[in-house]
């Protein structure tokens, strides 16, 4: 009689229980990278490729760092979220537009003498009742009121030689007494002493009896100061925080923006939550034509921010970012080479799959300019002789910007005619630079006219050699280099590449030890002055005028232009600057960068802004839609695992049979004692 042993039942029932438990565990599994507690919160999920360099507002100057500092810190002004052409400044911490008064006074020169200058006195007024975020650096941990002195402290800190403030050169020679303050403290630091913040700066003034007011005295007209006052670099900083945290302010910000940093996990995430002390700001009620139709004014008048939290996930790998976006766990993503084909079958057209999901494609032209540079001090390519001018014009006309954009950046980019990018006052969409139209025949003719027929240098009888200094070290850089070489070699010129390590490259450029190179410039603020100064002779190397272009006429028009507000007269001066510099060809303007963004259907109010990074302050989320779509996109599928294990089991069946057979053989031998 075949009686099964009770333990056998137990073993089998245990196995079934294990299988059931495993199935239950699998069905309970999900692919959400967020905790359950986050699911019902209005959290905006964004990404960063790596940890940001710093959250110190006096230093942060790269896109990633500013993506956070612009949410944590607030400045006197902020850029309007919707009005972008031209960009408009709105008051943020400021109570009123600054009052600018021309003044004539005796300025102290570096040698101690006095000189009468025509300057400007700017008077600012901070909104009363605004507070810094709560932080242990304040008595009782409650953020104290923001005063005019906090703005002045920020300026003093920016000019501290121990703080590598990136924009100090924009104002240290303009604010009365700041250069002397810098020089004094530089000496102290050389003697291992701390910076003396009490050293007087005549140009930074408090207004007695008005703690919310402060003044800045400039030794020259500088209307661009209003743009500097919109940068987080000039946001008010509490001196208490600097005293308590010192350099740790880079990871422990104490601001006055719409959000505060709640959590930072290195290489993990930054979590920002609403600042209870945030300044009262509302969503704009007016925008550009088409904004209402695009649904960008639905939240008009509502208090900012519109989400509870912003979480920046640090994800270096494009594949992971793309997967999480497709699963709905990221609200916005960029289009990179990794996902270009999947996102867009051709430029400006979103793929049918993404379109069916409701994903929106957004394009933004960056406020930048990419260009090649001739060293104007070089005896061959530089100078202002007709021969050198013709040579530069010929090279300029041999450079095919469209081809470069197509091959190097997948067609993303706009051909540049001059320095100013679109979106900035002074950009002329109808302007066609006669020396920036690709025309190889004309380029060859110009080269022959310059005395280099078919690119042959008559002094040597060989092709003219031009050295191209660059820092192309990666594959992308080398690809761009090969394209440039091919373009210029097509004239018969021999373009010889010299690739350097970055520091060496910078040293060569700053020292003028180059003939020809490539460069780029990104706007600090949306003003043509910030681009036109790339050819202003006072900004020569190591300043931003890398070509060392020097044209007295250009300089005179530039000085006139920079002191004007945006008027038709100013636009005419900018056009004049274009016309003056174009025939000299000190630079070969190639492109203004463009970028694509993909936005989930539930994200509201998204309008990319190339100059401001405070977009999350304005974004909103349709939570119902997000929850529903995420759920439908991420239903766990168990069948593949059943299939895999089923397959393994079936393929193992013959093996199991063999094992059983061998075991039985042993058993029989054990019982009989005879070999089978």
């Amino acid at each position: 009689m075949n009686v099964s042993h009770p333990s056998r039942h137990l073993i089998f029932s245990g196995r079934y229980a294990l299988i059931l438990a495993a199935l239950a565990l699998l069905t309970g599994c999900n692919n959400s990278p967020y905790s359950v507690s986050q699911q019902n919160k209005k959290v905006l999920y964004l990404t960063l490729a790596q940890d940001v360099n710093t959250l110190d507002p006096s230093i942060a100057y790269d896109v990633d760092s500013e993506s956070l500092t612009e949410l944590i810190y607030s400045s006197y002004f902020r850029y309007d979220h919707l009005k972008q052409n031209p960009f408009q400044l709105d008051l943020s911490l400021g109570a009123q537009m600054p009052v600018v008064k021309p003044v004539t006074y005796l300025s102290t020169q570096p040698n101690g003498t006095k000189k009468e200058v025509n300057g400007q006195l700017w008077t600012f007024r901070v909104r009363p009742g605004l507070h810094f975020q709560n932080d242990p650096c304040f008595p009782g941990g409650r953020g104290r009121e923001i005063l005019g002195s906090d703005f002045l402290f920020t300026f003093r800190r920016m000019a501290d030689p121990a703080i590598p403030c990136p924009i100090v050169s924009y104002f240290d020679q303009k604010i009365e007494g700041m250069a002397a303050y810098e020089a004094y403290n530089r000496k102290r630091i050389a003697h291992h002493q701390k910076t003396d913040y009490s050293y007087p700066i005549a140009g930074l003034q408090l207004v007695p009896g008005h703690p919310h007011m402060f003044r800045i005295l400039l030794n020259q007209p500088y209307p661009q100061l209003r743009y500097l006052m919109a940068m987080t670099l000039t946001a008010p900083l509490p001196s208490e925080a600097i005293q308590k945290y010192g350099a740790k302010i880079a990871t422990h910000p104490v601001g006055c923006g719409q959000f505060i940093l709640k959590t930072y996990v290195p290489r993990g995430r930054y979590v920002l939550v609403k600042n209870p002390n945030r300044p009262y700001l509302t969503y704009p009620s007016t925008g550009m034509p088409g904004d209402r139709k695009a649904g960008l004014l639905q939240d008009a008048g509502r208090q900012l921010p519109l989400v509870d939290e912003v979480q920046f996930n640090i994800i270096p790998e494009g594949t992971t970012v793309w997967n999480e976006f497709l699963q709905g766990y990221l609200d916005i993503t960029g289009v990179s080479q990794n996902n270009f084909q999947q996102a867009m079958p051709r430029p400006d057209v979103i793929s049918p799959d993404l379109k069916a999901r409701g994903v929106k494609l957004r394009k933004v032209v960056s406020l930048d300019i990419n260009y090649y540079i001739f060293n104007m001090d070089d005896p061959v390519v530089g100078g202002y002789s007709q021969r050198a001018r013709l040579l530069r014009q010929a090279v300029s006309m041999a450079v095919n910007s469209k081809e470069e954009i197509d091959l190097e950046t997948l067609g993303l980019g706009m051909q540049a005619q001059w320095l100013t990018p679109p979106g900035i006052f002074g950009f002329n969409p109808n302007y066609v630079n006669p020396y920036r139209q690709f025309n190889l025949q004309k380029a060859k003719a110009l080269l022959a006219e310059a005395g280099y027929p078919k690119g042959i240098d008559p002094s040597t009888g060989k092709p003219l050699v031009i050295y191209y200094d660059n820092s192309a070290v990666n594959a992308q850089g080398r690809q761009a280099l090969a394209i440039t070489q091919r373009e210029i070699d097509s004239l018969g010129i021999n373009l010889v590449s010299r690739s350097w390590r970055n520091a060496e490259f910078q040293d060569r450029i700053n020292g003028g030890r180059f003939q020809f190179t490539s460069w780029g410039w990104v706007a600090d603020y949306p003003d043509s002055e910030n681009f036109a100064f790339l050819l202003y002779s006072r900004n020569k190397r190591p300043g931003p005028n890398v070509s060392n272009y020097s044209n007295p006429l250009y300089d005179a028009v530039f000085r006139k232009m920079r002191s004007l507000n945006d008027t038709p007269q100013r636009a005419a001066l900018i056009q004049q600057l274009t016309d003056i510099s174009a025939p000299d060809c000190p630079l070969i303007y190639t492109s203004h960068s463009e970028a694509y963004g993909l936005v989930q259907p539930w994200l509201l109010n998204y309008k990319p802004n190339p100059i401001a990074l405070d977009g999350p302050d304005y974004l909103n989320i349709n939570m119902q839609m997000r929850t529903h779509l995420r759920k439908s996109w991420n239903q766990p599928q168990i069948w593949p695992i059943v299939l895999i294990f089923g397959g393994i089991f079936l393929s193992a069946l013959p093996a199991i049979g063999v094992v059983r057979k061998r075991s039985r053989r042993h058993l029989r031998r054990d019982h009989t004692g005879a070999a089978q």
Partner: protein
Amino acid sequence: MIGYIIRRVLYAVPILIGVCLFTFVLFYLTTSPQDLARRNLSAKNPTPQQIKDWEHTHGYDQPKWKQFVRTTEGLFLFRFGKSDGVGGQRIITRIKQSWLPSFEIASLSFIASLLVNLTAALVIAYFRGTYFDSAATTLCVIMMSITYLLYIIVGQYTLGRLMRITPVGGYLPGWQSLHFIMLPVVVAVVAGFASDTRLYRTFILDEINQDYVRTARAKGISESRVLFIHVLKNAAVPVITNTVSAIPGLFLGSVLLENFFNIPGLGNYLVDAINNQDFAVVRANVFIGALVTIIGFIMTDVGYALADPRVRLE
């Protein structure tokens, strides 16, 4: 054995100094303090004065021998100092923050791989000479030919996007970490399966033909008992060599896994430091890596002695 261990520890000192010197020389051959300064100063084109100030603040203006002595002394005293990056975070603080996720993934992968691979190797050895053996060996060769990166991408696609049972990336601390490390552990086990299984199979087959195995069979001991008890114990020495050498990875993290699965571990810390040319962090990580590797080797030797009574550490 104690004397042997003390001697090995003393040998470690010149090795570690050599590692520090090699790292130092390599750094100055591949980059320069000016490069670091430019990278870490946020200005578009930092002035020579700003670069000089940065070098002074980070001690790169001192004579090179002084820099080497100062930094090496710090490493030996476990005073790793601060990062060269903006903000200058203390390196030890970051290591304390990052070691646990790395350890979780690496230790689970280590244990799971050891169990799965050894079992698989024994099963394959059991069917030695059959079609099953040939098929399994061929499969191992195919799996070994596939790049690690593909396992990661396929893992993310299969478990994350197709089956939707694990996140494709991310990490939360505590018990929630299991939810996130499941996929990297599965990928690590699958990716390492073929090479280790094949290796262990060879170790086991070497033992299977020994006289003591024949004797055991002759005494009527079942094949499974022979394999899992007698053969496994004697194949332990080469297995220990292979597994203990993986121990440093438990502490240092897996660069690829952490990068793709977005795990805030030590592997990522090192990658970021290399990308950002953060010499202070690279130096500290290389030192810790060398130290843990030396400890791993000593542990291997001790493991030999414990597993095989014939081995004497003198």
